[in-house]
C-alpha cells in the first residue's frame, strides 16, 4: 500500500540517531512543562524557536511536535496528584483522577492516563497517516453555522446528562457562561464585565479558572477541616492498574480516541472540548453514573485518550492545509515558514520526508512517552505520601508561578486567588465545578459562532437547517433530547428522589 511505503520512508527519517534524539528531547521537555500550569507548549516553543533556525526542518518539526503532545501527557500528572491541571485539557482528568489519588490509587490513575494517552496517540497518528488529507478537506466545510450546531449538541448532551441537583447544575453552567463572557466581545469589539481593568479585556484565562476552581479551592477546603482526616489515604494498594482496571478502561479509551480524533481535526476546536465530550459520553453510558466525580477510572481514561488523540490530529489541518488548528500549531507553521517551507497541500508531495518523517516520529514519540512515564508513576505516586503541610504550600507556589507565566502578569495570580475563594464557596454549597467549566468553554464559542452565522446570513435563522452538516447536528440533538427526556419524564420523580438521598 502507498501509505505503508510512505510510512517506511518516514521511519527511515525518524529513526536516524539525530532525529530520535530530537524526538526524545521534545517529548521530555513536553512532559516537564506539562506538569506546570501556565507554562505550556506555546511559551516553550516560542522560546525555542530561534534555536530551531539552526536545525534542519525535519528535526525541528519533530522536536516541536514532541513538546506539544508530550505536554498532554505531563499535564495529567499534577491534575491527578494534586488537583492542579497542568494543561488546559487536563482539567477534566482532575475530576476523577484526583479522587483516585485520594483513595490511594494515584498509581493506577497515572498509569491509566499514560496508557490511554499512548493508545490514543498511536491510533490517531495512524488516522493522520491514512486519512489526513481527506479529513483535512472535510474539516474545512465547518463554518460558523456548523460550529454553532456542534456546540449546541454538546450543551444538549450535558443538559441531558446533568444528574443530582438540576438547579445547582444550571446555576453553575450560567456562572460559567458569565465568566466566559468577560472580556472584549469578538463581534462588537466592546468590553464586557471588564470593570475598567485592561487585564480583563482578554477575558479570564482557562488556567486561572481551572487552577483556582480545582487546586486552590481544594487546598482551602482541606485546611478548613478541623477533624484529623488525612487528605490522602496512607493505604496505597497497588501502583499499576489491575486486569479489572485495564478491562474497564478499554472501552472508554477507544471512545475517547474516536471523539478526540474527530475534534482535533477541526480547526478552531481545542483539546479541552474533546476531553470534556469524552468524559460526558462515559458518564452517560456508564451503568452507574454516580461513581463519576468519586474516582471512576473511566473518567481518567476517556478524557486523557481524547486530549492526546486531538493533539495528534491537530496536525491534519496544519500539515495538509497549512491551516493551524491552535496557537501552538500556528507557531509550528511559523517555524516551518522561517525554514523556507510553505506549509500547505504541496508539502506532502514536495517534501514527503517532512510529513511522513513527522508521522513516524509521532509513533516513536508516543512509545518514548510511555517508556518515560510508566516508570515515573511510582515516583509521582509517592508524592501523595508527603505530609500535607509541606505539599500545599508547594502546590500554591506552582499554581502562582504557572498563572504568572501565562501572560507575565501578576493580575492573573490575584484572579486565580479570587476564583479559588469562589471555588470554596461552591464546594460549601455543594455545587460541582464541572458544569461551570463546561459553560465557560462552550459558551463563548456558541455565542461567537451564532452571531457570526447570523451576520453572514443577514439575520436569517434558516442557515442552521439549510447547511447539511449543521442540520445533522441539530437533528441529533433533537433526537437525543426526545430519547432522553421521554423515559426520564416517566420515572423522573422517583430517580431524582433516590439520587438526592444517595448523596
Amino acid at each position, binding site marked *: 500500500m502507498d501509505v505503508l511505503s510512505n510510512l517506511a520512508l518516514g521511519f527511515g527519517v525518524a529513526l536516524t540517531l539525530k532525529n530520535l534524539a530530537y524526538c526524545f528531547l521534545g517529548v521530555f521537555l513536553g512532559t516537564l512543562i506539562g506538569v506546570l500550569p501556565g507554562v505550556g507548549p506555546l511559551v516553550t516553543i516560542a522560546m525555542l524557536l530561534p534555536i530551531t533556525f539552526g536545525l534542519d526542518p525535519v528535526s525541528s518539526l519533530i522536536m516541536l511536535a514532541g513538546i506539544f503532545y508530550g505536554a498532554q501527557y505531563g499535564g495529567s500528572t499534577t491534575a491527578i496528584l494534586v488537583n492542579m491541571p497542568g494543561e488546559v485539557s487536563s482539567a477534566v482528568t482532575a475530576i476523577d483522577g484526583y479522587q483516585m489519588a485520594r483513595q490511594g490509587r494515584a498509581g493506577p490513575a497515572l498509569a491509566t492516563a499514560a496508557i490511554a494517552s499512548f493508545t490514543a496517540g498511536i491510533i490517531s497518528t495512524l488516522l493522520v497517516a491514512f486519512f489526513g488529507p481527506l479529513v483535512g478537506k472535510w474539516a474545512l466545510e465547518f463554518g460558523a453555522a456548523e460550529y454553532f450546531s456542534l456546540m449546541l449538541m454538546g450543551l444538549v448532551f450535558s443538559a441531558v446528562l446533568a444528574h443530582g441537583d438540576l438547579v445547582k447544575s444550571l446555576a453553575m453552567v450560567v456562572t460559567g457562561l458569565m465568566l466566559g463572557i468577560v472580556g472584549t466581545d469578538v463581534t462588537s469589539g466592546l468590553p464586557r464585565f471588564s470593570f475598567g481593568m485592561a487585564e480583563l479585556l482578554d477575558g479570564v484565562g482557562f488556567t486561572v479558572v481551572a487552577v483556582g476552581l480545582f487546586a486552590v479551592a481544594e487546598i482551602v477546603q482541606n485546611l478548613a477541616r478541623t477533624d484529623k482526616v488525612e487528605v490522602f489515604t496512607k493505604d496505597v494498594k497497588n501502583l499499576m492498574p489491575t486486569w479489572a482496571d485495564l478491562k474497564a478502561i478499554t472501552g472508554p479509551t477507544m471512545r475517547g480516541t474516536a471523539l478526540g480524533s474527530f475534534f482535533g481535526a477541526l480547526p478552531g476546536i481545542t483539546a479541552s472540548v474533546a476531553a470534556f465530550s469524552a468524559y460526558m459520553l462515559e458518564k452517560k453510558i456508564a451503568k452507574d453514573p454516580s461513581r463519576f466525580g468519586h474516582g471512576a477510572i473511566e473518567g481518567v481514561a476517556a478524557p486523557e485518550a481524547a486530549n492526546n488523540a486531538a493533539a495528534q490530529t491537530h496536525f491534519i489541518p496544519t500539515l495538509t492545509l497549512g491551516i493551524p488548528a491552535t*496557537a501552538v500549531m500556528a507557531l509550528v507553521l*511559523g517555524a516551518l515558514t522561517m525554514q523556507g517551507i510553505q506549509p*500547505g497541500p504541496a508539502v506532502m508531495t514536495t517534501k514527503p520526508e517532512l510529513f511522513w518523517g513527522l508521522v513516524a516520529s509521532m509513533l516513536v514519540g508516543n512509545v518514548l512517552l510511555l517508556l518515560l512515564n510508566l516508570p515515573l508513576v511510582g515516583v509521582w505516586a509517592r508524592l501523595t505520601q508527603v505530609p500535607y503541610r509541606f505539599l500545599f504550600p508547594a502546590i500554591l507556589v506552582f499554581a502562582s508561578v504557572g498563572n504568572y507565566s501565562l501572560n507575565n502578569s501578576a493580575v492573573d495570580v490575584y484572579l486565580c486567588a479570587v476564583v479559588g475563594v469562589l471555588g470554596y464557596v461552591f464546594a460549601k454549597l455543594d455545587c460541582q465545578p464541572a458544569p461551570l467549566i463546561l459553560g465557560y468553554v462552550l459558551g463563548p464559542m456558541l455565542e461567537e459562532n451564532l452571531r*457570526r452565522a447570523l451576520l*453572514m446570513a443577514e439575520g436569517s435563522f434558516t442557515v442552521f437547517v439549510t447547511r447539511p452538516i449543521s442540520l445533522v447536528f441539530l437533528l441529533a440533538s433533537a433526537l437525543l433530547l426526545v430519547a432522553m427526556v421521554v423515559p426520564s419524564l416517566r420515572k423522573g420523580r422517583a430517580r431524582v428522589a433516590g439520587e438526592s438521598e444517595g448523596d
Partner: protein
Amino acid sequence: MNRIVTLAATLLAATAFNAAAQAWPTKPVKIIVPYPPGGAVDVISRKVAQKLADQLGQPFVVENKPGATGTIGMALAAQAAPDGHTLAANDMTYSLLPYVFKRLPWDHAKDLVPVTTTVFVPYAIAVRADAPYKSLGDLLAAAKANPGKLNYGSGGPGTAPHFATESLMLAAKVDLTHIPYKGAGEAMTALVGGQIDLFIASTASLMAQTKGGRTRVLAVSGDKRLAALPDSPTFAQAGLPGYGILNFNGFWAPKGTPAEVVAKIQAEVAKAVATPDMVAFAESQGGFPGGTKPDAFAKTVSDTTKMWAPVAEKAKVERQ
C-alpha cells in the same frame, strides 16, 4: 549630610546617564512584545534580538506582556527607564490604538519614541482560488452590484485588517459586510473554507495559502509587483490608485531616551536586518527589511495614525 547624599546621587545619576549615552548596551536589553508568543511581531522581534545579541555581546531578552490589544505591554514600556535598555516592539496596530480605546494609559503621540523599523510588509487583498473574481475589478463590480452582500473577514473589530478593508470601502465606494473572527488566523481559515468572500491582510499571512493554490491575491500595496507574488498587480495597476497599506514592524523607546542611544539602536538594527538571512526572511513574506532612521519612522507612525481618522469615523468604531 542630606545635601551631600543628594549631590552624590545626582552626580552618580549623571555619570550613569553619560555612560549610557556613550556605551549602549551596558546590561541586558529587554524588548517588550505586547502580544502572546508566536505572532508576527513576536517572531520578527526574536529574530532581530538574536542578531543584536550577537552583534553587541549583551543578551537581548524578549518579554511577552500580552493583553488588551498590546496596550498593557506598551504602557509598561512607556514607564520604563529611558536608557535604551527597555524597548517595545509593535507593528501598524500601534497607529490604530487611539481609535480603538477611549483612553490610553500613556500619551500615544509623546510617551513612546519610534526608534526604527525591522520589516515592512505590504497589505494585499485575497479571495478563494475558485472564486469567480479574477481581478480586483471583478470583485469591486460585484460588490457595487450587490451592496452589503459580500463578506469580509478580520481578526476582530479595531484590528488592522478591519481598518484596512474599511479604508478600501471608502476608496472604492463599495459596501461590504464585516465578519469579525478571533484573530487573523481564524479569518484566514474562513477564507480558505469559503465562509467569507475576501480578506485583506499582510502578504505574510496570505503567502502560504496563495503559494499553496488555495487563495488568489488580486492586488498588493506598493508601487511595484512583489517578487514573491509576480502574478498579482499593484492596486494602482488593478484600477484603484491611491489605495495601499504598508504594515511596519518596529521598536519604540520610552520618552527621554538619549538621542545618541536611539541613533545607536537604529544603526545596529539596520545592520541586523540587512544580513542575508533576514533579507531572505522578509522577502519570503512579501516584505522588505526596515532599519529606518528615527525621524523618518516617527513621521510614518504619525502619518499612518492620522490616515485612519476618516476610516474610524466611517466604520463607526465604538471605542472601548
